[in-house]
């Protein structure tokens, strides 16, 4: 009878484990197997605690079963929700860092152009000419960001260039923004993107995703 129960338990939990398939996360497999294991354990306790065990023993074992299963369940679901929360938090922290880097680098680049534009002596160059003097040969669609290291995933594209207006679109290559369906400048979808527009009056920022 012990072997029969063991085989039934192994088969039940194993089948339940593989029902969700080979997903990226292992949680669906574990949760499915956990539910099967719970049903198995309740059946096992009900079977083994029949007579000749007395009422006191039955009550004690059922109480211990509920307390321990409750503790294990709390531990299990707590780890599930906590690890997913930490996962999401890591990504949102990365998005905040990404926006911070964009904010620290891109407007500074445009303000340098603005500063030079308003402090010219003699013949007045246009915004475009000033920008091109700092970024020789740059044209619309070019990435003007020099990566700080190989992990630097920021791209700053020239999205518009004219005598009176320069627009830079800063985009992260893997950091997800607010809208997962947002179409990014370089064709990706859902990544952080901010647009900065420079005119003679200053810089205007639009947080696009």
């Amino acid at each position, binding site marked *: 009878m012990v072997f029969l129960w063991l085989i039934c338990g*192994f088969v039940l*939990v194993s089948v339940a484990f593989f029902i969700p398939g080979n997903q990226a996360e292992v949680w669906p497999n574990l949760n499915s197997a956990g539910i099967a294991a719970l049903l198995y354990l309740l059946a096992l306790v009900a079977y083994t605690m029949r007579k000749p065990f007395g009422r006191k023993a039955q009550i004690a074992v059922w109480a211990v079963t509920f307390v321990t299963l409750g503790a294990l369940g709390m531990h299990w679901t707590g780890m599930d929700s906590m690890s997913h929360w930490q996962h999401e938090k890591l990504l949102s922290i990365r998005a905040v860092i990404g926006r*911070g880097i964009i904010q620290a680098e891109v407007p500074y680049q445009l303000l340098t152009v603005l500063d030079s534009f308003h402090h010219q002596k003699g013949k007045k160059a246009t915004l475009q000419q000033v920008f091109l003097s700092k970024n020789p040969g740059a044209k619309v669609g070019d990435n003007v960001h020099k990566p700080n290291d190989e992990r630097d995933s920021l791209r700053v594209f020239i999205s518009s260039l004219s005598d009176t207006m320069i627009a830079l679109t800063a985009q992260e290559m893997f950091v997800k923004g607010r809208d997962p369906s947002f179409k990014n400048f370089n064709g990706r979808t859902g990544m952080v993107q901010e647009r900065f527009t420079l005119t003679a009056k200053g810089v205007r920022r639009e947080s696009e995703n």
Partner: protein
Amino acid sequence: MNPKTDSPREFSSEYLQLLVAITGATLLLVFGFERLFSHQRFSPDVFIPFPWIVAAGQTIDDGLEMFTGKLPNIMSMSHRLALLADMLVVFVLGPTLLLMSWRKMRLVKEEQATSPVRGLWTLLFVVGGVISFSAVIPAIPIAITQRSVATSLFHAQAVQTNKDYMINDLNFIALYAHQYRILPKSYGGGEGSFAGFTPTRGLVSTENGDYIVSPSANQCLIKATSKLYPSAGISVLVNEAGQLRDWSYIGPFE
């Protein structure tokens, strides 16, 4: 005594001694396990009585991979099978041996069977008990403390998030202060001075905090107070180059 009736010796001294011995052995196993593997990360290669800890580790690892721009790893089939094996040992093998052998011991006792048969079931009872208790004993205190740990973690993270958003707000104010200093007076600027810079209402009062800006000719002092945690604040200077300098954090932001 009729075996089908309640027995007054359900928890005999012999049985209770056995239970205490199993608990002691399990505690030794648990603490020994902790000492042996405390320097290792929880991985599916090592048997642990909590397979969900491995799954949680994988979820957090995925987050870290994505944080650095890599694709998350998909757990290999061998690691999945190792997790399943952990599940089977903890939730099937251990409890089945414990409860079925306990029942058999009881029935053997009722039938006055010979000692070798009883010895075998006692051995299985001990093995099942050690396996089951190794999962149960640490789980109870962890379940009790988990909620308070989670609450303090959520709070700490909420404070940090508020701080990060306020730093972003300060960057914006610094940007507009720097721009004001660059722009000539004909464009509404300070023409080389921060003096007279008055940020818009939307800049000095956001959902994250309130900001007091004190501009002078060559620098601009910004003092921020959190709206969510009023005792928390940040103080920073914007220098002539528009850079944020002399950061200081107050209260929960320290």
